């Protein structure tokens, strides 16, 4: 990407969120700036004997209250409900008419995860057909046809949320879903930005959703020793990015959605502009599926690519929303990469991990964190990294410990580094005319 060349500008004209801190952007933002944790004992299933029995869960709410036209639709998964709710908030906030007045020029690009499987029915199928160390396949198939529900199964597919969003708003343009683990919804925003820049759409609904707080999801991450296991009795303290006593991340769930719009199109209809997406970088560590590269080379390259794409220097970044998962490796490596990219400036830029409060929303994390950057820009207020009690000598930057901080934020950077080494960085800036 050649920075500074003539190209279409992409602004944000609406945003929506469903997070463990609440349904809706302002509710979540209020909690974030107050430093509140959403992490509690898992209620969605009996996780009492799991190594990790805590998570950040979205408070129960009725889809009918937010997306009445979809409430009668049967068997929507949790992640789909979050998608629809957040997308509705974003679209409504944008002031665009429904359906979109330009169907072929309006697209959807999400980074949404799979839905939760029909676990107890699946387990029964397996257990009832377990013979001498193998599942009897003919038996599984015969009983599966009786026990499982076609629609529940189909609604787990990761491309379904993007279909529903398109249907809700009549968006007949570009439609895709990516699933680069923890980078997915940041990637969706970045790719959607490029789609508008190259002229293939004027409006893109971009973001993501995920819920992995289910028996196999938590099991999978526990097996990888990726989750914090020593804080089951003190859930609010479990997610402690950059702290010396961090042990791993805590699962969250939810959705974040943005309305991205070509600038002239937004100005032409007098839309309110929340900010501008100015930079996107995507790279791969090409190292290991289990660990980040020890020098953070992929993270570094993603940040550099985003800054170059944005045409901004490190001096212009006023806030970094870190990937900051609270794992030993990520936080150390991310710190190193930030120092390499920003040089001396790294010591003067506030960095915070809101995963300390929301938990890790996996595919949805990137979109939620991009919106948080825009709110920081809007309000001149940086959310803290909570549970920061004991500094780690290898993580010696300013992580905005424990309390939100007033500061002018003109441009912010958001990092999302996926399991397996797919890295995304976004740069967002306050909207300025020229």
């Amino acid at each position, binding site marked *: *990407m*050649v920075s500074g060349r003539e190209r279409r500008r992409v602004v944000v004209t609406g945003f929506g969120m469903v997070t463990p801190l609440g349904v809706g952007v302002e509710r979540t933002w209020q909690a974030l700036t107050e430093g509140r944790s959403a992490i509690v004992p898992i209620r969605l299933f*009996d*996780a*009492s*004997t*799991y*190594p990790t029995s805590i998570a950040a869960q979205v408070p129960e709410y009725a889809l009918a209250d937010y997306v009445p036209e979809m409430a009668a639709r049967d068997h929507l998964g949790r992640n789909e409900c979050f998608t629809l709710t957040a997308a509705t908030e974003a679209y409504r906030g944008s002031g665009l008419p429904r359906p979109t007045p330009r169907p*072929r020029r309006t697209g959807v690009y999400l980074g949404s995860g*799979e839905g939760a499987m029909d676990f*107890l029915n699946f387990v*029964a199928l*397996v*257990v009832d057909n*377990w013979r001498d*160390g*193998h599942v009897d*396949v*003919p038996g*599984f*198939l*015969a009983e*599966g046809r009786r026990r*499982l*529900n076609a629609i529940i*199964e*189909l609604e787990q*597919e*990761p*491309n379904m949320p*993007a*279909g529903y969003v398109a249907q809700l708003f*009549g968006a*007949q*343009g570009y*439609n895709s879903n*990516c*699933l*680069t*683990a923890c980078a997915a919804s940041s*990637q969706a925003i970045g790719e959607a930005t490029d789609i508008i820049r*190259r002229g*293939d759409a004027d409006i893109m609904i971009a973001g993501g959703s995920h819920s992995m707080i289910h*028996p196999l999801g938590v*099991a*999978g991450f526990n*097996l*990888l020793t990726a989750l914090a296991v020593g804080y089951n009795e003190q859930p609010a303290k479990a997610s402690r990015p950059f702290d010396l006593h961090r042990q791993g991340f805590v699962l969250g769930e939810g959705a974040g959605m943005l309305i991205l719009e070509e600038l002239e199109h937004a100005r032409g209809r007098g839309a309110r502009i929340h900010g501008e997406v100015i930079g996107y970088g*995507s790279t*791969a*560590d*090409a190292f290991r*599926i289990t660990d980040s590269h020890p020098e953070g*080379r992929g993270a570094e*390259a993603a940040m550099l*690519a985003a800054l170059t794409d944005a045409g901004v220097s490190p001096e212009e970044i006023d806030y970094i929303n870190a990937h900051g998962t609270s794992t030993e490796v990520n936080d150390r490596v991310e710190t190193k990469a930030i120092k390499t990219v920003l040089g001396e400036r790294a010591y003067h830029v506030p960095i915070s991990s809101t995963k300390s409060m929301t938990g890790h929303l996996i595919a949805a994390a990137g979109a939620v964190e991009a919106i948080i950057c825009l709110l920081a820009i809007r309000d001149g207020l940086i959310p803290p990294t909570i549970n920061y009690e004991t500094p780690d000598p290898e993580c010696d930057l300013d992580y905005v410990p424990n309390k939100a901080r007033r500061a002018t934020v003109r441009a912010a950077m958001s990092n999302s580094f996926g*399991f*397996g*080494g*797919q890295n995304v960085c976004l740069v967002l800036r306050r909207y300025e005319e020229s």
Partner: protein
Amino acid sequence: MDSRRVVITGIGVVSAAGIGREPYWEHLTAGRSGIGVSTNLDLNGFPSRLVAEVKGFDPRRLVAQRKAVKVMCREIQFAVGATQLALEDAGLIGHLEPDRTGVNFGAGLMVSEIDELGAAFSRSLDEHGRFELKRFGREGLASLFPLWLLKYLPNMHACHISIFYDCRGPNNTITAGDCSATQAIGEAMQIVARGDADVFLAGGADGKLTPLNLVRYELLGWLSHREEGTPAPFDRRRDGLVVGEGAVCFVLEELEHARRRSVRIWGELVGYGCTWEPGEIRQHSRSGGELAMRAALEDAGVKPEEVGAVLAHGLGLGNADVAEAQALERIFGAADQQPLVTAIKPVTGHVSAAAGGLELAAGCLAVANGAVPPTLHYREPDPECPVNLVRDGARKEQVHLALVNTFSFGGQSSALLLREPPQ
């Protein structure tokens, strides 16, 4: 600044119809289907016993890092194998520039091998033989191996590929149902065109040959129940899909970069269209891909009459075929005015997240060999689907432009336009 041009310099195929592009082409032109009665899974008693299984896949030959095989489920091994073949074809093994090489792979949801889970669940039963989550958390869970989750994550195709071949550029995993490979390739094309990479490994892999996936498709009413001659795209007797497995990878390369290497060029990607079709999301049939195909043509500045061949989605499923036939008619005219149309799923099976890539590979080989493979099982044309299908053997034809059409439940619809190699 003009967009850079993007060509295909390597093709790697792992399919039920051959491993490697030459065996694949041979199956396609000879009309030899890779579909047969399931051998890996016992489907006795299931209404559908036919599947398209990859045969003779040797990880030792095709998966560069032996130790990694244990943490790669079958589809991921296919993805890496197809990539190895594509890179060999392009002469790029050991010659990639890490920061200028990207990866984009289409993937489906991969379901864990049920025997692995069965072992864990069976350790979690109470004294009455009933599953108890408390026991699973305490004992059952720990009997799964530590990297179990990573063996099945959709983004692992692209991650393993990037690790094996040291590709550090842009990297994505598309999960858009049956459009996944088409979109992965289309997006890779955009990234090379905009200058963020010079080489891209793009394709898709899928494998729904697991008990859970088969039950799902059966419950949805998508599976064919016929014992032979199926799937039968556009045929009056069509009754559904035959599920397959496999992977395909293309080496996409910026044109001048390829010319400097004097490598054989298979074709140029000149158009990409991606849309969403209104209609019931839980079904395949809507507008048959019309708008995406038109968008791909418009993207390339090509008129319908210039297209020589269409690689149809050709599901062999109910109204989806009608919708596609009508789309082709609206774009190209009546059957006698249409380009040659062919549907290859009777040979490859339905490999969902790899489908568009398998069709693009057939398109590349059609252009290179001057022949369009036949559509098998087409014996009773359906008057509702008047399509200019190639039947009864491959048709010799100099194809200058080939169009690939894919659409998915969920509403996604994507198309790619391939041109013969530039002079």
